C-alpha cells in the first residue's frame, strides 16, 4: 500500500464537493455551538414557567426573545439546541478517540502477530459483535450512572469493532512488507514498529472508519438520551430534547422536529464527510 503524497491528497480532498458540504456543516455546527450562546444570550438551563411552550418565530405567537420558542419548562429551545450540539460533538469525538484507541490497538496486535494472538483478537471481536449494543449500554448506565465520562467510556467500549477489523486487515498486508522487515533488521522494538512504521501507513482507512463511528456514536448517545438513560437534565442533548417534547407531538411538533432534524443533519454531514474522505483516502472500500 503506497501512501499517496500528502499534498496531492489534500488537493483532491479540497476539490471534493461532499467534503465541503459535510465538513462545512460540521464546522458550522461547532462554531455555532461555541459562540452561539454568547450571541443569543439565553441560558439553556434557565426555567421560565410563565413562558413555557411558546412558538418559534414563524408560529402564531412567536417572539423575538425566544427565536425557536421554549420547551415545557420554559427553557429557550435555541439555547438548548446549541448546548445539545456541544454535547453531541463532544461525546462523539471523545468516544471515537476511546474506541479508536482500543480497536486500533487490538487490530495492530492481531494483524502483526497472527497465529494465536490473531485468533484471540478475532474471538474478542466476535464477542463484541454478539452483544446487543443498545441493551448493554442501557444496562451499564443503569448500573453505574450516567455522567459524561461514563457515557463516553461505555459507548467507546462498544464501538471499536470496525476499527479493529480494518486495522487488522491493513496491518496484515503491511506486516510482511520490506520496510517492516528492514525495521526489524535494525533492531527496532515491536511497539516502535507498530506505532512508528505501520500505524502511519494505515491512517487513511482509519480516518474513514472514524467518521463512520462518529456518526454511530452521535446516534447511540441520542438513542440513550431519548430513552432517559443518557445525558440527564440540566444538561441538554438532542435525544433528550426529543424525549421531553414527545408528549407535545399533537400540538407542538416543532419541539420534536427541531432537535430531531438537527440530529439527522449533523449525522448526514458526518456521513458526507466520510464519503469524501473515503473516495480520496481509501477508494478500495467504496460501495
Amino acid at each position, binding site marked *: 500500500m503506497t501512501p499517496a503524497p500528502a499534498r496531492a491528497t489534500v488537493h483532491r480532498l479540497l476539490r471534493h464537493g461532499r467534503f465541503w458540504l459535510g465538513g462545512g456543516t460540521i464546522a458550522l455546527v461547532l462554531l455555532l455551538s461555541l459562540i452561539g450562546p454568547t450571541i443569543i444570550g439565553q441560558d439553556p438551563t434557565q426555567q421560565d414557567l410563565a413562558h413555557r411552550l411558546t412558538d418559534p418565530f414563524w408560529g402564531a405567537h412567536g417572539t423575538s426573545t425566544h427565536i425557536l420558542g421554549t420547551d415545557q419548562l420554559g427553557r429557550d429551545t435555541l439555547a438548548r439546541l446549541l448546548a445539545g450540539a456541544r454535547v453531541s460533538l463532544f461525546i462523539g469525538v471523545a468516544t471515537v478517540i476511546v474506541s479508536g484507541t482500543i480497536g486500533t490497538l487490538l487490530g495492530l496486535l492481531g494483524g502483526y502477530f497472527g497465529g494465536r494472538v490473531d485468533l484471540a483478537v478475532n*474471538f474478542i471481536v466476535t*464477542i463484541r459483535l*454478539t*452483544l446487543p449494543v443498545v441493551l448493554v449500554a442501557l444496562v*451499564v448506565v443503569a*448500573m*453505574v450512572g450516567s455522567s459524561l465520562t461514563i457515557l463516553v467510556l461505555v459507548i467507546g467500549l462498544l464501538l471499536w469493532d470496525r476499527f479493529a477489523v480494518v486495522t487488522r486487515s491493513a496491518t496484515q498486508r503491511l506486516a510482511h512488507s520490506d520496510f517492516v522487515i528492514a525495521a526489524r533488521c535494525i533492531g527496532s522494538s515491536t511497539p516502535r514498529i507498530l506505532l512508528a512504521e505501520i500505524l502511519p501507513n494505515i491512517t487513511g482507512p482509519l480516518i474513514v472508519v472514524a467518521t463512520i463511528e462518529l456518526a454511530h456514536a452521535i*446516534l447511540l448517545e441520542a438513542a440513550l438520551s431519548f430513552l432517559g438513560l443518557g445525558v440527564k437534565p440540566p444538561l441538554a442533548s438532542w435525544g433528550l430534547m426529543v424525549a421531553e417534547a414527545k408528549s407535545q407531538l399533537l400540538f407542538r411538533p416543532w419541539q420534536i422536529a427541531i432537535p430531531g432534524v438537527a440530529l*439527522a443533519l449533523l449525522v448526514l454531514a458526518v456521513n458526507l464527510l466520510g464519503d469524501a474522505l473515503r473516495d480520496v483516502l481509501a477508494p478500495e472500500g467504496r*460501495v
Partner: protein
Amino acid sequence: MGRFLARRLLLTLLVVLVTSIVAFSLVHLSGDPAAAMAGEGASATDVAAIRRLYGFDRPLTVQYFAWAADVLSGEFGRSYYLRESVVQVLAEHAPVTALLGSLALGFALLLAIPLGVLAALRRGGMMDRLASALAVTGQAAPSFLLALLLIYVFGVRLHWLPISGNATTAHYVLPAITLGMYATPALLRLTRSGMIEVMQSDHIRTARAYGLAPWRVVLRHALRSAIIPVVSLAAVQFGLMLGGSIVVEAVFSLKGLGQLAWESIQRSDIEVIQAILLLTSLVYAVLTLLADLLNALLDPRMRLT
C-alpha cells in the same frame, strides 16, 4: 461441509458461553444488585432479605455457575418485579418482538432489493438517485425521529394507522417500517453494488450472447448471483434489529422483549435483564451461523468444502 459445520458450531457455543459471562458480569456491575432491586428508600432488612433470596451473598463464581446450570435446564429464575418465572415473562413478550422483527425485515428486503436492482440497471438514473437518497437518509435519521414522524403523519394527521399498542396487525405497520429502515440502507447498497458487479461478469455476457430475455438475464442470472451476500447480511441485520427494537417498542408501546428490557432496567429486575441479554446474544450468534450456512447453500461452489 460436515467439518465446517462442526467447527462453526463449536465456535458459536464458545461465543455464547463467553457472552453469558459478560452478561452476568454486566448485571452485577453496580456491586450490590440487591440494593438496586429493592429500590430507593428500602430498609436494610429488605435489602438483606432480597440478598439471601437471590443468593447475592454467595461468591460471584458460584452465582454464575448456579445461574448457568439453571439456564441449561431451562430455568431463568424469577422476576422480582413481576413475581413470575422469567421464562414465562419472556414467553409472553417474545412473540411480539419476533413478529415485529420479521415484518421489519420483510419490509426492508421488499424495499431494498427491487430498488437496488433498479438503481444498478440504470446508474445515475432517477431510481439510482432515489435509492441513494433513501440510503443516506435512512442511515442519518435516528429511529426515534422516524418513528415520531410516521406517527405524526400517518397517525395524527391522516388517521390511517394506529400508533400505539399491538392489538391488531395494523398496529405493527408503522413500527415495522421504522425498524426496517435500520437495515434498509446497508441492504440497498449491497444489492446495488453486487448487481453492478455481477452485470459485468462473463456469465451474464454469455446469457445475453444467447439471446435470453432481459428479465431472465437480470432476475434469474444476475440477481441470483448478487443476492448471496445480501441474504447473509439480512440474517445479521435481523439480529441487529432485535437489539434496536428497544427504541421502536418504547415509542410505539409494543409489549415486546425490547420494551420488557427497558422496563426491567428501570426497575432493576436483574434476573430478567440477564435473561434478555443472554437470549439476544444467543439469537444473534445463531443468526450469524445461519448466515454462513445460507451462504454455503446458495452458492453451489461452496458446498463441497
